[in-house]
């Protein structure tokens, strides 16, 4: 997949040297799907553990609603960003914990539990937003969404420095920490073991139920983080529309990245490449002025091709 990404990247660079190889545009390649990216890292853990989470898109709306309501409540305090971030993370983690607890202790299939979450979380968000948008009344919150680190030496057409948004940095940081967590800690090894053979893991003295609960909680927290950045960027939250299809984009990125939907094996950097590949394809389709109605079909085809390619490179049994 890395090869596919590099090839497409070179193709774009040669075909559209001006518009594509532009500093702003390259930054966008990283930042455009940072929200989905943050979620996809958590989704990688869930899928490696042998599960799935369909509720993340709706949870973005719910966490976003909680975030903006908190921002408006805490408008007076000087700590508005910190308080809002804490609220977003807590809301996401609690929802993820609930998903995980029902899955692990209630022994209900993850697909079913998170399908209920898909319906339920969105509904609660709509109730909080009275069916529509919740606007933030704090300007600094919205400004934060456009803030970030200026990249030294890079300027855009207007001569202003190109900024790497905080959300993009968070995505990269989450990916690094995720890779560390999966490969260098006991928890990560347990996630792989539970996904590969839950019974064998249990017989090895691993408390498989808590491993699952923490995995869904981790994903929930990351959804909260994504929702925090997303609502800062908008300085509002559209409870009916925000996060729609994020679950599909996140799962697609994980699968394209080579993580097995059957569980037991996967890689974080693959998911990062998956996110970037999906973004790159979206950009190319825009540069080529492909009818937006066709873009879904192209994405679908990309997912299928990626999985088929990975199948044929696997050794037989």
């Amino acid at each position, binding site marked *: 997949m890395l090869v596919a990404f590099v090839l497409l990247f070179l193709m774009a660079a040669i075909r559209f040297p001006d518009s594509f190889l532009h500093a702003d545009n390259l930054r966008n390649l990283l930042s455009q799907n940072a929200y989905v990216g943050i979620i996809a890292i958590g989704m990688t853990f869930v899928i490696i553990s042998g599960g799935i989470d369909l509720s993340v898109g709706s949870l973005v709306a719910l966490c976003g609603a909680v975030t903006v309501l908190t921002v408006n409540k805490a408008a007076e305090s000087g700590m508005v960003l910190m308080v809002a971030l804490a609220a977003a993370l807590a809301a996401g983690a609690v929802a993820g914990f609930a998903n995980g607890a029902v899955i692990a202790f209630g022994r209900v299939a993850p697909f079913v539990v998170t399908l209920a979450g898909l319906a339920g979380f969105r509904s609660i968000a709509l109730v909080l937003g009275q069916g529509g948008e919740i606007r933030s009344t704090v300007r600094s919150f919205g400004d934060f969404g456009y803030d970030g680190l200026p990249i030294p030496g890079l300027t855009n057409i207007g001569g202003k420095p190109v900024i790497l948004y905080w959300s993009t940095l968070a995505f990269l940081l989450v990916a690094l920490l995720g890779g560390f967590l999966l*490969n*260098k*800690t*006991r928890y*990560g*090894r*347990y996630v*792989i*073991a539970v996904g*590969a*053979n839950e*019974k*064998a*893991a*249990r*017989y*090895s*003295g*691993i*408390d498989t139920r808590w491993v699952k609960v923490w995995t869904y909680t981790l994903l929930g927290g990351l959804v909260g983080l994504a929702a925090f950045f997303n609502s800062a960027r908008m300085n509002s939250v559209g409870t009916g529309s925000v996060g729609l299809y994020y679950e599909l984009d996140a799962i697609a990125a994980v699968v394209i990245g080579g993580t097995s939907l059957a569980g*037991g*094996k996967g890689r974080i950097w693959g998911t990062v490449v998956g996110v970037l590949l999906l973004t790159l394809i979206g950009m190319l389709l825009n540069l080529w002025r492909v009818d937006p109605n066709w873009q879904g079909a192209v994405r679908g085809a990309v997912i299928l091709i990626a999985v088929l390619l990975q199948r044929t490179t696997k050794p037989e*049994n």
Partner: protein
Amino acid sequence: MTFPAVQALDDVSLTFEAGEVHGVVGENGAGKSTLMRILAGLQFPTSGEVHLNGRPERLGSVRGALEHGIAMIHQELNLVDELDVAENVFLGREITRRGVLDRRSMIAETQALLEEVKAPFGPTARVGSLSIAGKQLVEIAKALAVDAAILIMDEPTAVLSAPEAEALFGLIQRLRDKGVTVLYISHRLPEVLDLCDRISVLRDGKLVASFEPRNEPVDAQTLASSMVGRPMSDMFPAKSVPPSGEPILMVDRASVDGFAEEVSFILRPGEVLGFAGLVGAGRTELAEALFGARPLRSGSIEIAGESVTIRDPSQAMRHGLAYVSEDRKGIGLILSLSCVQNVTLANLRAYCRPVLSSTREQEATARWKSELDIRAGDLDAPVLYLSGGNQQKISLAKWLETDPKILILDEPTRGVDVGAKRELYALIRSLTARGMACIVISSELPEIIGLCDRAIVLREGRAVGEVSGETMTEEAIMRLAAGVEAAA
């Protein structure tokens, strides 16, 4: 076929006559399975060919082999538990009438086949409800349904109790008398000697000997020697003086729902205690309950004089228990993980502070590799690719890693070749010499008698007797296990 770095089969030529039972024996990795996979159409030979009735044939696939009358009964049975017997027998070749399944004909034909194999169940029994022996009969019926002329059986008795195995031998003889050729693979040499008209011995991918026991009697020792390539000195290590220390484990009236009723026993440090009995006597379930992997209904457990409650395997491990499962592939190991990851899995806590140290994991695994003589090329490769004996050693290493005081070994030598068996026996003795206490669950009587200091015999979940020293004979154990009062 050559596998990475190992040539599984090297220029082997064999002839199978119509209507013979032909035994194929050899250590794990000798090439038996590869040979059988080629005949069953699962694998292509890199050179050489298969002649059937004198004509060279390309088998190509399982379906191709079946069309040529070759059927294989796998070690892991390939049946769909959710379907009934008739549906399984006709799976993939359903009889239809105008596009609709003709259940009546399929049931009638299955009924006839089941009578032929003397199955104690009907065509509409759900396969999931049958015992392993029953499933095996379904597999055989399935082979007969396509008029198989050659039947390949891979370790068919590994999961059968003695009476079930006897019934299977009867069936094999009836099939032979009808002109069916049976290729019989087994690690149990006495039954191979009894059953087979000819025996071919494979070693390191080569045919090294063949015997015709009907013409010139062979004994198991000779057969084992030719498999291993060196004379087999005594299989079992010497037993130690009967230990007499304070018991490390006392189990009082332990019951497991549906499997064990009020079983009591004690275990001393340095002792090897056998759990003998037929398959299904509740030995595995009792061991799993002691290990916390299934609920204990009643009864008490004392470890080192202290009363303990064990609700899950992690608690059992804290009390110094370890359980090496009989189901290596399903429970004992995680096949997709590497040797290193499997070895450290139960003791991972020791390798993180708090970051996992892969160097220390590697070192520990390399230590076990040399200590247990594990033959694995790449310790980072999945354990899937190792032979049965080496997988068993990895599984053992994983539990020895936890430094247990009480080691429960469930069928430790199932699917393990003669050479590795001998090493495992020696290893178990060296562990108990260092004060570890072992429980060995085994269906192989010579193993119980040769290895254990004492054995309790279970029948239908109850401890029906204990044997040791002079009283530990195959006859005594069988009598207890089968519930026969006097000698037959």
